């Protein structure tokens, strides 16, 4: 029986040990994230069967909840941890050869910290810990966005920093209010007592926390930092940001609303917000000529879709949302990684500069088109089952409103298809300009990482059954407040 603490402790320790490792050899630190992520992945996979039966509550400091800080490793948390580890591993492999210039040691260290923060957020059972891990995540990502130190990067990082700081401040206020109200920071404890106070006094922290976390979760009006940050960060970081960071923020929002506040009535609001986010993101992406900005905006659209799914708050819709989350992590990471090397090759981020890439970098282009098709939700890629589940859940509501909103979401999907297919055409069928179509593959390691993602996309797309089953238990776990409270406060 491995302990979930390892998921956090080991990478954290490795992260801080990084400078020492660097003293041994300059080339060694590059491999540390690999080791850590591989370790996490194994642990998470080992954990999954046990947590599917019953969540593992890890008390720290010997006291029993609510008087101690506890980790709650439920199915959702562990799956998230596993996903983070997986994405982290793949992207670390990519980064081995992608990150050559600049302060590489610091890069890998911050990268580790980012992953640690993300893992912590999804595993913690304590509101203040949540905040702490969140800060770890955010701060490391600020630094990573500015990694290249060029003007765009610094500007984007500064914007990101400011908005993130505002968000964190709001979050902190909300948490403070909660502590003031209940005198405890344990999620389960708060959840159990939430009914005992007046609605309005619950509302204020709820509003503060939702908007605070919403900044990181990139819900519509709060996501202005995202396009700049994602487009000017190194591609590996863009991948991890839109593949992991946003999802973690979203997880936090959902955990808060579902479990801590149990505020079912906010869902309608979130529903509209989600649809709005979808349309906004897709429309902006449709108008982009810069590939990375386009991908960033499309992430906004995807987040909107996931919010839409979560806000419908049924088992299937939650499963669909989680599935879509998985889809987005894998596909968007793949897209960013592929785009990274294509940009590296053509030296420009303009879509027009990708013309004829299909001849020059066949495998990378293939990976990109897989990612695109999967995001648009075409069978037999992973995007299809998740979209299918979401549509199904929306229609099972049997209400005109939901059907209507679904229509809008699908409209967004249509726009998404339009711009993704445009790019795929540019890659394959437009004649490249002056440059001779000399065929040169990306280096082996990035190709391996892309290959892993592509294989996962296809495989899960063809045989989604086990994933769907696991996710539905996760969804029910996310829905079931009483079980959560009971399992923690035994």
């Amino acid at each position, binding site marked *: 029986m491995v302990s979930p603490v390892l998921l956090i402790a080991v990478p954290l320790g490795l992260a801080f040990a990084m400078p020492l490792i660097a003293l041994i050899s300059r080339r060694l630190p590059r491999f540390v994230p690999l080791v850590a992520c591989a370790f996490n992945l194994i642990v998470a996979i080992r954990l999954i069967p046990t947590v599917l039966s019953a969540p593992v509550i890890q008390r720290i400091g010997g006291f029993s909840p609510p008087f101690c800080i506890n980790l709650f490793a439920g199915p959702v948390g562990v799956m998230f941890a596993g996903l983070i580890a997986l994405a982290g591993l793949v992207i670390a492999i990519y980064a081995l050869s992608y990150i050559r210039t600049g302060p590489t040691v610091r890069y890998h260290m911050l990268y580790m910290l980012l992953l640690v923060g993300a893992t912590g957020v999804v595993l913690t059972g304590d509101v203040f810990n949540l905040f702490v891990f969140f800060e770890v995540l955010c701060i490391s990502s600020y630094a990573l966005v500015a990694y290249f130190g060029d003007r765009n990067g610094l500007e984007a990082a500064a914007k990101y920093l*400011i908005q993130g700081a505002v968000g964190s401040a709001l979050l902190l206020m909300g948490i403070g209010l909660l502590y003031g109200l209940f005198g405890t920071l344990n999620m389960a404890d708060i959840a159990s007592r939430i009914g005992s106070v007046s609605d309005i006094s619950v509302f204020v922290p709820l*509003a503060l926390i939702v908007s605070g976390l919403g*900044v990181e979760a990139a819900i519509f009006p709060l996501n202005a930092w995202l396009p700049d940050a994602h487009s000017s960060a190194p591609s590996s970081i863009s991948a991890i940001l839109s593949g992991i960071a946003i999802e973690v923020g979203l997880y936090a929002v959902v955990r808060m609303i579902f479990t801590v506040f149990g505020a079912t009535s906010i869902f309608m*609001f979130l529903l509209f917000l989600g649809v709005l986010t979808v349309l906004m993101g897709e429309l902006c992406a*449709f108008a982009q000529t810069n590939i990375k900005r386009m991908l960033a905006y499309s992430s906004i659209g995807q987040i909107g879709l996931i919010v839409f799914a979560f806000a419908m708050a049924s088992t299937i819709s939650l499963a669909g949302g989680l599935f879509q989350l998985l889809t987005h992590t894998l596909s968007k990471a793949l897209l960013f990684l592929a785009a990274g090397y294509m940009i590296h090759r053509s030296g420009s981020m303009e879509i027009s500069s990708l013309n004829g890439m299909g001849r020059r970098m066949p495998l990378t282009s293939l990976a990109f088109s897989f990612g695109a098709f999967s995001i648009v939700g075409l069978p037999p890629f992973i995007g299809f089952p998740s979209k299918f589940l979401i549509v199904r859940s929306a*229609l099972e509501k049997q209400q005109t409103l939901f059907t209507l909103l679904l229509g809008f979401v699908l409209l967004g999907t249509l726009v998404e298809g339009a711009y993704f*297919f445009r790019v795929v055409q540019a890659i394959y*069928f437009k004649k490249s300009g002056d440059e001779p179509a000399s065929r040169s593959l990306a280096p082996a390691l990035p190709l391996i990482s892309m290959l892993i993602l592509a294989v996962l996309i296809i495989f899960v797309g063809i045989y989604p*059954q086990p994933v*769907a089953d696991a996710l539905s238990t996760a969804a029910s776990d996310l829905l079931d407040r009483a079980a959560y409270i009971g399992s923690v406060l035994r």
Partner: protein
Amino acid sequence: MMVELLLIVAFGGSLLTYVLGKLSSRLRNGFALLNALALVIMIGMLYGQEFERSLPFGFLGIQFSIRMNMLSWFFAATILGIGLLAVLYSFRYMKGKERLDYYYFTLLFINASMLGTVVAGDLLSFFIFWEMMSWSTYLLISLRGGGKAIFAGIKYIIMSLVGSLAMLVAIVSLYTAFGTVDIGELAVHMQSASLGLALLVVILFSITFVIINALWPFHTWLPDAHAEAVSPFSAILSAVLVRKGLYGLFLLMYVILGFSFLDRLAVGAISFSNVLAWIGAITIVFAAFRALLQNDSKRILAWSTVGQGGYMVLGVSVATSMGMAGGTFHILNHCIYIALLFFVAGAIEHRTGGIRDLDSLGGLIKKMPVAFVGGLVGIFGLIGLPLTNGFVSKWLIYKSLILEGRPFLAFAAFLGTWGTILYGYKFIHNIFLGQLPDELRDVKRVPFTMAVPIMVLVVLVFLFGVLPGIPLSVVNQVGTYMGFEPLDLNVWGIPSESGTLNVVNLLAAIAVAGFLVWLLFKTLGRSTRVDQSDNYAAGAAIPRGRYGFTREFYAPLYRIVSPYVKDFPDALFLWIADRTKALGGMTRKIYSGYVGSYVMYIVLFLAALVFVQLTWSPW
């Protein structure tokens, strides 16, 4: 087990073709041909079998199943037959072009997924195959590269995406309503369905199928796509792929819903089949006059494809067994002669160095006799002259329309035919007749592997025209499967009470009269063959180079009709796309790049939450 094997061979074959292409091109071509041939043989062995079987695996708890019956067999046979010919034709046509492995792979893959759509026994797998068909088609349309091909591709994929999203919603709502997507079970459940659900499902499905079948006003993707794709693939597109829409309509109208239900959907005169019929009529006339205005060999054929789709829909929507037989038979006939015509256009393109503009061709009958025969027979079939297959199916459609008392629909159909004569003759004249321009003096004749498919199709056009009983017996079985009473047939035609069709009399009469006149002509007339330069030009020697009347062949008619046959739907869709882009440009302004406003958004969001709470206090 046969059908599973069929699918495995189809999909595996396409992949294997790609792999072999990396080794050697000869191997690839040989294997592709072999694969297509094997598929044809297998489908031949499946003739007449009827079964439905659920597969061992499923998708998200939905059991996949496959079904084989006359309807599926009919469509599968057309798909595989044309596929075989197209592969054979491609060898020379695609020779020397780049990305051949990709081409053959995608071609076979599209065929395989089309096959999947027709043998799918449940709507989910139908949908999955359908989607695979859509995106692979999109990947092949723009193969040529160049702005127009790119535009055609994006136009196609967006419209088909609209269709497939509509279909997804329809299928899922069926699933949520009845908990199954198996076609057989749905047919049972549908009878007890609520009208609202049925209406939703019917409308959504019809959008999908009308788009893919390119009926007005959703025809706009077709002309670009067919004109810009490489010719063998254009043949596949307009011969079989477009007709998947009709397969879907059959499935929807006669397998899932059934007559009784369709009648329940009717509101007075506005019934589903009536609306469909009128859409078909508009399509026929509109497409005929659009085709008149075209000046590109493949674009003319593309528009004719649109129009012929209207005929089939007319036949299908007049729910008599005769109309049904006409529509179904017309699918087969159209798939034969349109493929033939696209092959011919491709051969011309191949030999003249990619000339598709009808103004710069002419006189090629002397250089490419095979292509000329193909083109002439194809056009005759398209017009539907007696002794060609098109005649029989059109005869059935007209007759059922007249006897059903639908004179206006019949009028649209006739008018479309006369339009067909005009552009068909223009096609023949501007390419093959008239004086041979100097720059085409050394055009070579059609290569063998391209001539074989053309000749096969020519023979089929006449065979099915002279012995319509053979294909009509198959068509009859399709009709009976869908619950129509069969027509009484003999091998020469239809001996029915109100006006019979008897092709053998026609054949005999034409043969005898032709022979007699030929005899008269040969015995009495004496003629010497002269060169094309020995031609009446008011006493002058004719100018060298280009001497002929091809430009603006129907100019006065253009002047009359062109104001009325503008392609309004196309303009509308382009406008919508344009507006969407502009809207995106405007929404982008929200992200102004000024961090102060960003922070303001956050505060505003908070404020909005508070406002909502204080006003309605939902929490």
